[in-house]
């Protein structure tokens, strides 16, 4: 059976805001996703601060497949499938390090940092010197770098990263800019959190794309003073007395999206960091620099978003989540956390502690997300459940080509407050790539 039989089962209906549960639980659709989405789209694979020196490498992942991010001896970046061309063994089994070569532990085929097959045992007596080494290098993906973020793509026909990101590129540039609009860049805090989440990979990606509606998920943590504001609430900005207009910005052709908050002029940005003097002082300078650079547009504070298909970013707690597919019923989440490279040590430390207590499987906030996505998945598997699509129609038909400020849409369409516009854009793009529109 063709997994995309639209007569038998409409999968995504953007006009009505409906999404079939099949796309989260069906094994054939999952297999088709690997082919049509993960083998064709740009995927985030790491950050330059992980591979600074020639020979530095770090393991990463593209879809289900293990890859190696390597800076070669001449300084160029590569992304290789971590699998020997001879018989498939992983050529590298360490999470990170510095190497001049990758020697397969099975039969000893050895590859250099440019992925070239450099040495083969028994080349003369076994292969009669007939093996064409140049044809059997590691399988390599295209690589692109944007403001320190590193992306890779298997498909030569996919447009370059800039064109592929389209208007959503501004979100990535902004994310990887330092908050004070000054010199330097973000640096990764050492250690990538990796954990197993028993639900389909799209739950997390969808949530981060634009779900301002799920506060009830966090009813417990919102009673606590989790943030550096010292006031109750999980976000530091919950303490800002002037209430913002939340902005959801969707890029329907690419499936990317962003979220943010538009504050009234003169809003008290610094109340977000009131309880930690070092953070307060740092963000005082940072906000002044930001205002000098952005002028009126500094009133827009980005919160995060999702770059289709599986990279989500959070600006306030500077982090990236990758929702790696690991079977239709399982997701392996990788979480990267960043601090401004040139911030004072005390600032970096407070930001580090805030992200650890907020995010990931031990974070007081995201613990509850994991539970909800897990059980939403589980309760969607049955024959009867699959007959009933998910409802993502909030705000349908009220999308605006322009926001309340002419500059707010940033090339996308905008909806204020709570809305499922961004998720609809995400699933529309999913359906387009799957041939299911």
């Amino acid at each position, binding site marked *: 059976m063709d997994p995309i039989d639209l007569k038998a089962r409409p999968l995504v209906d953007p006009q009505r805001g409906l999404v079939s549960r099949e796309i989260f639980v069906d094994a054939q659709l999952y297999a088709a996703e690997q082919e049509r989405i993960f083998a064709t789209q740009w995927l985030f694979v790491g950050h330059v601060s992980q591979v600074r020196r020639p020979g530095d490498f770090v393991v990463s992942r593209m879809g289900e497949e293990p890859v190696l991010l390597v800076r070669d001896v001449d300084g160029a970046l590569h992304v290789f499938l971590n699998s020997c061309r001879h018989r498939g063994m992983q050529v590298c089994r360490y999470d990170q390090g510095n190497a001049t070569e990758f020697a397969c532990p099975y039969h000893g085929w050895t590859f250099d940092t440019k992925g070239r097959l450099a040495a083969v045992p028994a080349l003369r007596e076994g292969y009669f010197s007939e093996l064409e080494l140049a044809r059997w290098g590691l399988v390599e993906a295209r690589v692109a770098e944007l403001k320190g973020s590193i992306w890779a793509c298997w498909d030569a026909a996919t447009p370059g990263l800039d064109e592929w990101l389209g208007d959503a590129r501004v979100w990535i540039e902004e994310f990887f800019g330092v908050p004070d609009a000054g010199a330097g860049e973000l640096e990764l805090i*050492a250690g990538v959190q990796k954990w197993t989440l028993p639900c389909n990979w799209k739950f997390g990606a969808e949530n981060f794309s634009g779900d301002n509606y799920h506060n009830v998920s966090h009813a417990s943590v919102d*009673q606590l003073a989790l943030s550096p504001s010292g006031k109750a609430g999980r976000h530091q900005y919950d303490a800002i007395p002037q209430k913002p207009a939340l902005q959801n910005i969707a890029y329907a052709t690419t499936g990317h999206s962003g979220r943010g908050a538009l504050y009234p002029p003169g809003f008290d940005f610094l109340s977000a960091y009131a309880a930690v003097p070092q953070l307060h002082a740092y963000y005082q300078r940072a906000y002044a620099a930001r205002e000098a650079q952005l002028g009126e547009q500094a009133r827009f504070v980005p919160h995060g978003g999702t770059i289709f298909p599986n990279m989500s970013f959070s600006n306030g707690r500077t982090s990236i989540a990758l929702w790696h597919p690991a079977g239709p019923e399982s997701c392996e989440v990788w979480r990267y956390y960043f601090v401004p490279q040139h911030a004072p040590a005390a600032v970096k430390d407070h930001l580090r*502690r805030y*992200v*650890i207590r907020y995010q990931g499987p*031990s974070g007081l906030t995201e613990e509850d997300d994991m539970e909800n996505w897990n059980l939403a998945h589980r309760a969607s598997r049955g024959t009867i459940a699959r007959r009933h699509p998910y409802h993502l129609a909030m705000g349908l038909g009220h999308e605006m080509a322009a926001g309340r400020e002419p500059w707010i849409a940033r090339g996308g369409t905008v909806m204020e407050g709570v809305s499922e516009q961004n998720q609809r854009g995400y699933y529309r793009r999913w359906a387009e790539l799957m041939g299911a529109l």
Partner: protein
Amino acid sequence: MSGVDNAAVARLLRVREAEEFLYREAGLLDRREFTAWLDLLADDVRYFMPLRRNVPSLAPGEEWTREGQDIAWFDEGKDVLAMRVTQLHTGVHWAEEPPSRTCHLVSNVLLVDDHGPEWEVHSHFVFYRSRMERETDLLAGRREDRLRVTQNGLRLAHRRILIDHNVLPIKNLTNFF
């Protein structure tokens, strides 16, 4: 009676005291008496569970992320631990609503150093969690604790929780270790 080695007996008693502290703690956690568990922690306690990397056996220097510097599963003090307990008592902490059933099995207890005001105590653990109808989770590892001797008995001053996992096999860490 002659022949009793008083120093050895005193040491045995300290071993028993350390063991009982760890077992009492495990019991409080498994009975969800979290406030009483918090009382066993020193006010300046540090609670740390690093990430674990796959590293070369001959150069294992970066196997663990570093306390106070890197990303960890936990790297916090009593303020955050107390927030976790408050969260567990809200009734709307969905990851523990209805509550998980846990079993902390603590073994291999070694009193490594009992010379100063804080004893160094090592132990191994298996953490079993049952949730909802039939979710089951298992974590294993060891702990390196510093237990402070106080007038009210031992108090946990520092805990380093070393789990045997690279990719965490469970969805969340809503429990204490």
